[in-house]
């Protein structure tokens, strides 16, 4: 055994104790991700509030992980969801199967399904990670959703704080991590979970932006 090498090793590890640590104190400090990071999906709308999705099932076919289930339905003049003939009667993505590759986004002829950079989706049950239309579709009050190339820096407005801070972000400014199903608001080091009350607005983007 090489005794010198052992002492060299001991000196190295001792020295490392006083180096700057690489750890980011995650739930409290968040690291900015790449601008076009692929995370949770959203189904976008047209400016007039119509759903973009026409239920063509191309995303379902393109998906390499078989994560998407689309069941198309016919639009009728009384019950119109999208401008075309058909709309997505059911639209489900199993976020546990999804590999966040973005093939669905590429396949979609109407730019309906897009991937946002939201990544905090952990939950306690598998079934809660099957996101259906109620979680995926941008609620009408929130606007139309943003195409990736339209996002400022590629980040949707509610993640803007992350984008503005270069490497880490101070959560005291507050931002929503996941907001299709459950809203998780990080603010002043605490996490609030407002309960979604039947289609009501549970989040005020203006307050978040202005209340810093």
């Amino acid at each position, binding site marked *: 055994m090489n005794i010198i090498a052992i002492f060299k090793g001991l000196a190295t590890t001792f020295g*490392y104790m006083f180096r700057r*640590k690489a750890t980011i104190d995650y739930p409290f400090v968040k690291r900015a991700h790449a601008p076009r990071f692929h995370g949770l999906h959203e189904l976008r709308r047209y400016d007039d509030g119509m759903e973009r999705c026409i239920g063509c099932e191309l995303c379902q076919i393109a998906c390499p992980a078989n994560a998407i289930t689309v069941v198309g339905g016919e639009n009728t003049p009384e019950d119109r969801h999208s401008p075309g003939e058909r709309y997505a009667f059911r639209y489900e993505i199993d976020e546990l199967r999804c590999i966040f590759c973005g093939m669905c986004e590429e396949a979609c002829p109407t730019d309906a399904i897009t991937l946002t950079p939201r990544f905090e989706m952990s939950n306690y049950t598998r079934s809660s990670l099957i996101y259906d239309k109620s979680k995926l579709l941008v609620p009408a009050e929130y606007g139309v959703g943003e195409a990736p190339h339209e996002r400022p820096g590629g980040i949707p407005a509610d993640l803007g704080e992350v984008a503005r801070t270069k490497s880490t972000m101070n959560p005291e400014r507050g931002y929503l991590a996941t907001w299709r199903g459950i809203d998780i608001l990080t603010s002043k080091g605490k996490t609030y979970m407002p309960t979604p009350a039947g289609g009501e607005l549970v989040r005020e983007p203006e307050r978040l932006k202005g209340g810093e």
Partner: protein
Amino acid sequence: MIDALPLWLLVAIKSLVLLIIVITLFAYTMLAERKVLAYMQLRVGPNKVGPWGLLQPAADAVKMIFKEDLTPSTADPLIYRLAPFIAVFTALLAYAVIPFSQGEHGPWSIANVNAGILFVFAITSMGVYGISLAGWASGSKYPLLGSVRATAQMISYELAMTMSVIGVILQASTTSLSGIVEAQSRLWFIVPQCLGFLIYIITAVAETNRVPFDLVEAESELVAGFHTEYSGLRFGLFFIAEYINMITVSCLATLLFLGGWNGPGAAGHPLLGLLYFVIKVFAFLFFYIWLRGTLPRLRYDRLMAFGWKVLLPLATLNLLVTAIVVALWY
């Protein structure tokens, strides 16, 4: 007032206090280990439970207690359940005789035995029963391999360890732990017995099955070695035993080689002596963790070869030279 108490009550109180101290020390040694390892690997370690992660041991304890206690269907149920208790019991028993400081009425220990060092070695070598029985009774392959290794490793390193300690006993010409510390009031035995000290710390690491001699657990080869099948509180007991053994060998190293509670101004000030003792023990514990953060695990045959072909002859040589010197000059 203390003298008025019946002996059994006094001993019971002392034991209880010491038990609480040792268990707390175990908990924080574990936390310190996680922290120091993390710092050496550019991480920060546990920092969420309590300030600076200081309540992490409590959280771990709660977790351990509430986990399911599984017994494999192939296991020998009685021995399987008993083994962790043997491990902890033998680990704790050593503290019956370890003195921590010198007061007016004798050393601060539960019992001041005149063959203390022999008692400690007799008891701690029983600890291997806990490990080998655990592995054998689990009725599964990895634990069995782990316990076979444990038996072989602990027996081979025990020899060299005892040899290195006999040198100290010869020089102090007493087997009482407090007597050995008194014999070092002028010169710590680390100086005349430097070879013995080196052998002692190496074998001590092996005896407590710690990196780089943790062949018994060897995650990458044996899953978790002898305690692969254990879960919940019984697993926790093995954990306690391992760390308490680590503290025991650190205490022994302090007593035998680093002058125990001796230090500048310690004579006549038991508390100062206790402080010196604790500082020395902590230095050893840090060294242990430091080693774990630095060295990779040895290969099994190398471990055996090192024990039998290097450490044992060196220890014997050390013993011979000590014996000759003591016989001629003392």
